[in-house]
């Protein structure tokens, strides 16, 4: 295999991208869980790092893996810095103002509005800084990526376009996502070479219109159907002074209609999402190579459903595991009897925490599946002068993703 990419000093090399599924993710899931429990959750940052290392190494360019060089302590300290320098002071400020002036005082309200604005801005900043950290910690053949440019430009664009979403009834979204992607992609570098992105939002408006009309139609259809089925009965009962309480069959009908509406809505929005990603990929270039992607709505929905079921399995598994810890104290008695025991009560009160931890139990598998789907549907066509690409100077990022962690905006 190595002979295939024997270097040519100044020539061009064909590029290809592939996915080689990382082994041992189930074992890693349980190891990470055990260490998170032992460390009261603080291991989260190291766990995340190890998962990334596995996922990055599964992504191959010309059959050679990417390397993730980030460290758990960078994520941990980044999070601590943001929590202690931004979130904790803000919490104390809000509390102090509320305690001093009262929760309904105009000064308290003004500060709340101001904080919403500041956090709205910080959210965009978090996305950009997280991406910058991840790229700075991504290497291929020892050459790292980077995200240049001013994060403030992205944060400001993210902020003002978000404000316009309700005023434009959402129609700014194709333009907005193209603009934001353009800022990130055009500022991305591999070594000393830039990535180029030249997509326009125009081609996205057709799919968006379908998704928008489809979404509204689904919404109206669902409520119209429910109104048509039950309005007459509700009105009749109201005239008699009897409150309307739906029967089990009627609840079933509403639930089924909701489910169908949900599937239709997911289909139209996923179709738009897939078209957006494909469009962006199609307009992304690196040297003489061009990306393309073939994501589909069905593929995205299937991925979403199966990932949700995997997450649910983890949550139920761990919830049940925590609950079963009561068995040594109360035996296999009924819940009504078991809860009389104080230790069992304590254990049962920890079940939600078990479910909480369980939701992220199989996160390595979920994240690997998502990355796998994306990479397997991505291709690169063309060449790049790989041997001429050199390491870019500077661009070192000390701490990682504190803001993104705090806002929970991170995808992987």
């Amino acid at each position: 295999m190595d002979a295939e990419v024997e270097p040519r000093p100044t020539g061009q090399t064909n590029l290809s991208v592939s996915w080689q599924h990382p082994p041992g993710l189930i074992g890693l899931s349980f190891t990470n869980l055990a260490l998170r429990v032992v460390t009261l959750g603080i291991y989260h940052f190291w766990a995340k790092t190890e998962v990334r290392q596995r996922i990055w190494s599964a992504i191959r360019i010309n059959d050679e893996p990417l390397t993730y060089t980030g460290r758990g302590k960078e994520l941990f300290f980044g999070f601590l810095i943001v929590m202690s320098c931004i979130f904790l002071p803000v919490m104390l400020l809000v509390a102090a103002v509320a305690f001093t002036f009262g929760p309904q005082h105009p000064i308290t309200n003004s500060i709340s509005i101001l904080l919403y604005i500041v956090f709205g801005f910080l959210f965009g900043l978090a996305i950009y800084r997280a991406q910058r950290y991840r790229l700075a910690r991504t290497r291929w053949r020892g050459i790292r990526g980077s995200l240049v440019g001013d994060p403030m430009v992205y944060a400001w664009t993210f902020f003002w376009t978000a404000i316009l979403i309700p005023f434009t009834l959402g129609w700014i979204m194709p333009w907005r996502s193209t603009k934001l992607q353009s800022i990130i992609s055009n500022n991305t570098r591999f070594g000393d070479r830039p990535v180029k992105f030249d997509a326009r939002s125009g081609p996205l408006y057709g799919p968006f219109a379908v998704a928008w009309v489809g979404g509204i139609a689904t919404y109206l259809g669902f409520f119209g159907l429910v109104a048509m089925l039950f309005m007459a009965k509700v009105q009749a009962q109201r005239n008699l002074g009897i409150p309307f309480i739906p029967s089990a069959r009627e609840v079933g009908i509403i639930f089924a209609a909701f489910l169908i509406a949900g599937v239709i809505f997911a289909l139209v929005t996923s179709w738009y999402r897939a078209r957006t990603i494909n469009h962006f990929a199609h307009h992304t270039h690196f040297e003489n190579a061009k990306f393309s992607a073939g994501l589909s709505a069905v593929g995205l929905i299937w991925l979403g459903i199966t990932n949700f079921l995997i997450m649910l399995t983890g949550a139920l598994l761990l919830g049940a595991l925590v609950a079963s810890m009561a068995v040594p104290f109360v035996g296999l008695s009924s819940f009504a009897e078991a809860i009389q025991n104080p230790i069992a009560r304590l254990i049962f009160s920890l079940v939600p925490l078990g479910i909480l931890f369980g939701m992220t139990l199989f996160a390595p598998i979920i994240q690997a599946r998502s990355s796998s789907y994306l990479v397997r549907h991505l291709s690169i066509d063309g060449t790049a002068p790989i041997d001429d690409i050199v390491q870019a100077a500077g661009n070192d990022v000390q701490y990682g993703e504190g803001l993104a962690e705090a806002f929970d905006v991170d995808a992987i």
Partner: protein
Amino acid sequence: MSMPSEQAAKLVHARFSDGQSARSWSCQLLLGSGGLEIDRGDGSDALIWPYSALATHTAVSRGAGEAIIEWHEMPGAQVHVRDAAFIERLVRIAPQLSAGGMRRRWLMPLLAVMGIILGAIALAWHLDIKPARAIAGLLPDSMRLTLGRSVVSQFASKGRACIAPDGQRALDALKTRLLRDVPDADLYTITVADIPINNAFAAPGGQMVITKRLIQSAKTPDEVAGILAHEIGHGIERHPEAGLIRVMGLSFIIELISGGSTGGLSSLGLIFLQTSYVRQDEASADQQALRLLRQAKISQNGFADFFARHAKKRCKPGDTKCTAPDKQKNGGGTAFDLLRTHPYPKDRLKVIRGTASYTSTPALTTEQWRELRKICNKKQART
């Protein structure tokens, strides 16, 4: 560290990148005596990377078919090797390359820190140190009052606050009697609110609200005195302030231990933790109430009677655990027990009825009691 055997010392094909450019070179690896030897085949001297200083960013798992090895003295440089047997031998010599080896490096210090934190928590638990209450005790009165008044104004806004003068005088008399030996008694304020609920609650800064419905539902002034004593108990213990501080602190801790990625379930966990504290606070406020009633020479029976009647109304038929203290062992619990903010009425009754009796007089005269019940005949004007 063991030295490589003669059998192991064989050449293996790999690729070398220098970290300066994306070019990679075909090379030969050898497990040498001084370290990993890298022969780039260009006539230059072989690179020797000491085993103890070898590193990787992707842990080498057991049976791994490939590995990327680095040396911190040559930043960015790496060797990409695909030979399972060679990798296994290398990891045996340089165990820090394995997942376990990588974790051990920082897991021990992390576990030591966790041990210290857990020890501190256990010590605080053992010594009954309540940080939220301690912080609440440091809040200046002006801040507590502002917040308390603001909370009260939500329930007893203008048009709802009852201010009939004779009723107000009766209420003041009861308040004075109950607060006789309470420090900072001047801070405490009781507002009667004409709102459609049957309840009473304490806000920060000793601000209390009791509803018209509760006063109307009470059979004797001693019952109202018992409820007010309980709310004053919350004020003395600074439970409302401590509750706010606790919610903020618990939110922060949950965010910290979950890495800020808990989503909505953190709120659920918070509710469970918080309700447990609130149950303790209610029991402690009951103890304060009993003390205040004794000092004011008001019978605790009114307090007990109120709970007994309340329990009969609230408890579902057949819920023996709710109503009958002596049948506890036969009763059944539910998952909702965990969500209760107050102790069971039967538990509270047991405590109240269990206190020794003392000489007492009615909380209010017949005339005062009549006026208190009419306090909502006049309300604060809307502005």
